[in-house]
Each structure stands twice: as C-alpha cells, then as structure tokens.
C-alpha cells in the first residue's frame, strides 16, 4: 500500500460533502466579478473618464484596499477594482476547505474511521488539496470566460483568472501547513487567517507607498507588495505588461508550502498537532466557575489574536496617513476630487474616515466569529451537560454576547488608537490624534453590533443554517462596501448593510440618529434571538 492509497476515494467524498458549498463560492465570486466588470465598462466609456478614474484611484487609502492603478484601459480598471477583494475571498474559500477536509476530520474522529480503511497516510491531505485545487481551477476558467465575454482581451482575462486561482492554491498550501501545526481546526483556521492578513497588509503598505510611474498615470508599488502573493497578482499587470513569470512565483510558493505540509505530516501522529499538550490545573480557578468566566476562557484566544491584528492594522494605516497630504500637494486634480467628496474635513480626515469605515467591517469578522462560538458549543455537544446544570439559557447566551460586544468595542478602540499613535508621531500630536481617531473608530461600532444582533437572531431561529447565514451576511456587507457604489446599486440595496448608514467620522460629524437606530436594531434582534433560543430544542 502506498502512502497515497485511497486518495481518489477521499477526494470524491470531499467533493460530495462540498457539493453545494464550493459551487456557491465559485459562482458567487464569478458573478460578483462579472457584474463589476460590466459596470466598469458602463461607467468609464470615454478616455477622459478613464483618465479621471486613474487620478482618483491613485490615492493611498484607495490603493491600500484596492491595489495599484495599472493603466487607463477597462481591463486594468477592472483589475484594480476587483482583484484584492476577490483574492481575499478566494484565499478564505481555499483555507477553510483545506482545514475542513484535514484537521477538522481528525478532530471529529472521522479521519480515524477513514484511516482504518485502506487509506495511505498522505491520502487525506492530498485529497483535500486536489479538491481545493479543482475549485480554484474552475474559478480560474470561469473568470477567464466571463471577462473575455465582457470584451476584455483574452490574455488579460485569463491572466486575472489564473492569478486568482493560483492565489487560492497558495493559500490552500498555507492552510495545509497550518493544519499540521495546530491541533484544532479553530487554531488552524486562525493561523491561516493570520497568514492571509499578513499578505493583505504587506501589499496594502506596498501599494499605498507606491510612486507614480514616470510620465504616466500608473503606480509602481513599493517593495512590500513583492512580499505578498496577493501583491504578485497585481504585478502580473495582465492588461499592460503581462508579466507571465509572476504566475511562476505563485506556483513555486504553492509547491514549497505543500512540500512543507507533507514533510510535517510525516512527523506527527494522527489527531495530534506539532506542539505537545501541556498539563492543566487539577482544580478550576474561581473566575472560571460562572457562565461569563467560561465564555471568557473559551473566547480569550480569539480576542487576543484579533487585538494584535487590529493594533498592527491601525499603526500601519496611521503611518500611511502622512502620504495623503504629500500626494495632494503634487496632485491638484486629486485634491479637487477630494474637495468635491468632502464635507468640511481635511484630506487626512477623509482618508481616516474611509479606512476606519472599511476596517470596522473587518472587525465585524471577529463579532461574527465570537457569536458563532455559541453555535459551535451547541453542535459539538458540550452545551448539553452545561444546560443540564442550574444555568438558564439566557444567562449562558449573555456571557458570550457580552464578550463579543465588549471585544468588538475593544478592537475598534485599539484600531483607532494604533492609527492615532503612528499618525500622531508623524504630525507631532500623539494624545490629540489617539483620542480623536479612537473616538472615530468607536463611532463605527454600531455597524458590527447591529450585525451581531442578526447573528444572535439566526442562532435562535435557524440553528441549522446559522453559520452559513451569519458569514453570508458579513460577505454581503463587505461586497456592498467594496463594490456596491461602483455597481450603482440602488440605495435601498446598499442600505441592507448596517455599515452604509454610518458617516465617515472624522471627515463627517458623528450622526446620532443612525447610531441609535442601529444599536436599537441590534438590541431588538438580540432579544429576539435569545427569546427564540429559550423556546427551541437543543439542536446538535
């Protein structure tokens, strides 16, 4: 028996388990891309419009989230507008799928059952990688076809498709390594997400610091972008230079990561991580012996991880704030655009308003994750004996809700303070900037908190679908925030996202009405969710 025996059977099993999930990802992402491409070609019909786009898109805030401006042709505009956000989603699709078919199977004992059948030791990982590579290949083909059908050049269309697919495969490799290192699927997903965050951040810094190319409208990203596989995708420049060799970089990195994962599998037992389990205390500390204490114990790792991420993001974006002033001095056209946009804010205020608004949606990722912990506790069966003690259902829920809420507020304050610290050091006013940007970040809190109410409501009302619905709601918010305006969606559709309703403080005044309405909506939905949970069966 070779160490790969049974791979084909396991891959079929994985495809069967994912027969809904992966197609939804692939066609959903393809659909978003096609819609955006169509609206780009509708919005920028003349050379003048396209040149104006290049001017406005080449500002540090926009480039941090979208990537460098690559040219004034429709293909390049489409690339800038869509590639980063799609690459992040493709990476998430890939890491979650790999963890689901490797570490999660080991954790639930499914792998043991399968492993005792005729299956080689490398078969489960190989099957997972084949499945995920297949999904990415399908996505690459779909993207190539859709963009080409939309009138973009074949080379460029296939270039975007291949770059997205290969980014997905690279992150499948990242997840494969994470699944060997960590003993739990939660930990493996966290490690992989940290890798993705780092890749995003490196290219955000590199693209933000990019310099205008001599004589043109395009931007040359700074060195940091070259440290990130997502950054490489942009550097392919599929519609202008078409640096095909960049795809080779992605392929080589994917290969190295997969090789590392295989090397690690050979050095551990089934079900174990790389780090040995340490012994715990023989008796419980007093703080643990309440529902809130238990919830904190279960959630504190996530709070810590997200806190570090938020401080890093805040400090980074704060440091980039200086660029915006410099940029406006050299670019009067852009300054004019900013003034048209602007209320009474300075350009730096505009920048921070935009960045904090988008980062609040990212922070909502924590909120959703923390609240879904309740569902995980229920379906894994640990909740059953807990609720057979003298703990009421609302009291148990409130412990988790309290931590998710306080954690969200903490993350936003850390984000704003981090930005205030680094920007304050640059402009010479640390206390003033920390207070003002922390306050501005806090003004975004009603967004994640309203979403939190929706998550609690689905946990109470639709437990079986809660995980998919909660993450789906967050994805909708991200997409509405990133491409909603570009797609010229009607206001009622944009209004679905709670984040749409909050003004970009500090560039705008704090508005009390949306804050209070969103908090009230969150509270009502939470109450509905708790009430529904009280009245329903425990659902495994």
């Amino acid at each position, binding site marked *: 028996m070779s160490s790969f025996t049974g791979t084909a059977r396991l891959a079929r099993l994985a495809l069967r388990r994912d027969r809904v999930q992966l197609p939804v990802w692939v066609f959903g992402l393809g659909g978003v891309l096609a819609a955006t491409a169509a609206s780009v070609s509708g919005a920028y019909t003349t050379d003048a419009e396209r040149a104006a786009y290049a001017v406005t898109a080449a500002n540090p805030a926009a480039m941090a989230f979208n990537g460098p401006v690559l040219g004034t042709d429709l293909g390049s505009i489409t690339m800038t507008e869509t590639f980063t956000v799609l690459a992040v989603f493709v990476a998430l699709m890939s890491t979650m799928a790999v963890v689901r078919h490797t570490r999660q199977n080991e954790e639930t004992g499914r792998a043991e059952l399968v492993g005792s059948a005729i299956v080689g030791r490398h078969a489960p990982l190989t099957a997972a990688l084949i499945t995920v590579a297949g999904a990415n290949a399908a996505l690459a083909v779909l993207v190539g076809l859709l963009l080409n059908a939309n009138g973009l050049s074949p080379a460029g269309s296939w270039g975007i498709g291949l770059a997205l697919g290969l980014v997905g495969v690279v992150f499948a490799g990242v997840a494969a390594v994470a699944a060997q290192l960590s*003993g*739990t699927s939660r930990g493996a997903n966290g490690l992989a997400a940290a890798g993705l965050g780092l890749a995003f951040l490196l290219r955000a810094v590199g693209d933000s610091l990019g310099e205008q190319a001599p004589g043109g409208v395009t931007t040359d990203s700074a060195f940091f972008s070259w440290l990130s596989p997502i950054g490489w995708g942009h550097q392919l420049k599929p519609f202008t230079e078409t640096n095909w060799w960049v795809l080779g970089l992605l392929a080589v990195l994917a290969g190295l990561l997969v090789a590392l994962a295989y090397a690690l599998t050979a050095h551990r037992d089934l079900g174990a991580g790389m780090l040995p*389990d*340490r*012994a*715990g*205390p*023989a*008796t*419980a500390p007093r703080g*643990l*012996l*309440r*529902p809130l204490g*238990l919830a904190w*114990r*279960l959630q504190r790792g996530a709070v810590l991880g997200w806190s570090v991420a938020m401080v890093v993001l805040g400090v980074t974006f704060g440091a980039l704030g200086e660029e915006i002033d410099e940029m406006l001095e050299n670019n009067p056209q852009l300054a004019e655009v900013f003034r048209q946009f602007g209320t009474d804010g300075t350009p730096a205020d505009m920048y921070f308003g935009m960045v904090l608004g988008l980062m609040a949606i990212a922070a909502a990722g924590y909120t959703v994750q923390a609240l879904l912990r309740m569902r995980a506790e229920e379906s*894994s*069966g*640990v909740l*059953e*004996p*807990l*609720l*057979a*003690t*003298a*703990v*009421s259902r609302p009291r148990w829920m409130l412990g988790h809700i309290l931590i998710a809420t306080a954690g969200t507020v903490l993350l936003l304050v850390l984000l704003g303070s981090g930005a205030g610290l680094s920007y304050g050091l640059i402009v010479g006013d640390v206390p003033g900037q920390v207070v003002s940007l922390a306050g501005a970040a806090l003004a975004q809190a009603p967004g994640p908190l309203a979403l939190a109410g929706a998550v609690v409501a689905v946990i109470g009302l639709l437990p079986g679908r809660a995980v998919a619905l909660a993450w789906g709601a967050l994805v909708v918010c991200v997409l509405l925030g990133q491409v909603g305006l570009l797609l010229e969606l009607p206001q009622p559709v944009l209004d679905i996202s709670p984040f749409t309703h909050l003004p970009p403080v500090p560039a705008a005044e704090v508005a009390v009405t949306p804050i209070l309405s969103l908090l009230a909506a969150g509270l009502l939905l939470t109450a509905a969710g708790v009430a529904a949970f009280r*009245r*329903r*069966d*425990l659902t495994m």
Partner: protein
Amino acid sequence: MTAAISVTKLVKTFGPTRALDELDLSVRTGEVHGFLGPNGAGKSTTIRVLLGLLRRDSGEVSVLGADPWRDAVSLHRRLAYVPGDVNLWPNLSGGEAIDLFGALRGGLDPGRRAELVERFELDPTKKCRAYSKGNRQKVALVAAFASDVELYVLDEPTAGLDPLMDSVFRSYVQEAREAGRTVLLSSHILGEVEALCDRISIIREGRIVESGTLGELRHLTRTTVSVRTERPVTGLDGLPGVHDVRNGDDTTRFEIEPGRFDAVLRHLAGFGVLDLTSTPPSLEELFLRFYGGDAPAEAEAK
C-alpha cells in the same frame, strides 16, 4: 411512595419521526430505575425531555414535582446528569470541567470530589482533548457523584468503562440508593441492570412496553420446561400457552407462558413423570423477547 419522575402520554416528534409516542414512565423516589430498549427506541430523547433540553409536543412531565421545561434552573440544582456521549471543552483540564459542572449545579463537596477522583483513577490535570472516551465519562461521573443531589440521571454511563471502573461505578450507585437518592439509569449492560436496578422500564419505538421488577418481568415471559416421562408425551400442542414442543427419546421440551402451568402439569401426570426441570428465561432471552417485538402481552393476545 411518591414519584420522583412521572410521565404520561409524552409525545415528541422530530419532523416526520415520532421519537416518543405517548410514553408513560414512573420512577419512585429512592429507587434505582433501569431504562432499557433497543438503539433508537427513544431513551436519550426521553431523558432530554426530562431535563428540559428538548421541548415536548404534548403530555405531562413532572420531575421532582417540577415541570422540567418551565422550572429548568431550579430543578437542575437538585439533579445531576451524565450524558451518553460525554463531550467536554478540549482546552479545559478534567479537574476544571469537574469543578465547573459542580459549581454551576450549586457546589460540590471537595472531600468527596478528591475521593471520587482517586477511586476512578482519573488524572484531573490532563486536557479534555487528551482524554479517552472512558476518561471523559469518568469526568462526568465524578462531577455527578460529587454533587449532593436528589436525582441522578445517567444515560449509558458505563459504555466506555473497563470492568474495574464499572465496579467502582456500581458501588457509588448503591451508595446513592442507600442514601435515599433516586437514580434513572439507561443501559445496554444487562448484568449492570440486574445488579443495580430495583425496577425496570423497557421502551420500544417510543413507547414503554413493560415496567416492573426484574422478577415481575421474568414472570411475564415464557419458561422453558424439559420433562422425562415413562411414555411418550402426546397432545401437548393443543394446550393453551404451550409453544415449540420438541419430542426426544424419553424427553420432551417445550415453552410455556406464565400462568399456564396448572393444566400442563395435570396433562403431563398421565405419562408418568420421571424428572422435570423448568428454566426461567436468561436475562438475554428476556430482553431479546421484549426488544424483538415478541412481547408477552402480544403473545397472549394471539
């Protein structure tokens, strides 16, 4: 005697599945009550309704005089539950899990906890993810028996225990009974049921098919009789309550329903009985009959 648990006409459905179908159950205060039935019969579902974890569709349920759905919190202070499949938090130690369950139930006796940990040979410093199935079960058992409660609800608590630990478990159940506590014990291990239970209820397809002491249940099923006679026995087949007659050289074997001995013995006397043995059903035979749908009530109705 008062009833610790009393259930009448309990119905619980999961979509199209009727898991509990007008189930009646009565557990007296101070007894160890065995709850038996084939896989999927509805034991765990019944227990979850008794704990207020599932909501009943209809029927009356009273546990320690309270409604488990409405008064869940105050009721749970007075009982301890060991689930059939013990799942624990992977990153808590066993000791932490024991203390947590104990504290949330209203406190546990540290001396008794220490004794239980020692008797069950549990290492409380291990992380729960590192425990075997049997050790996870021990964590739940220690947490349950260390609490001073009126009712223990145990769903297949020994399925993963080795024989040594099984006997420790039995001694704690005995001790609970001697202290006047009530125990509801769901189990597939017949020896355990015979050793521990005062009364037994057998559930099949969501209904209680029989309830009583082991002696009463034995009494309800057929006895195997083997008789040696001077002349070959004839005419047995025609007697009511006699089944499976097999004639040997001088020995005849048959099965007989309870309460039918009189006529049969009179009939046999005519053939010169040399020797007669009557074997009550073994525990296995007894339960196979109840589980397999060949219950005496139905047999008699035929």
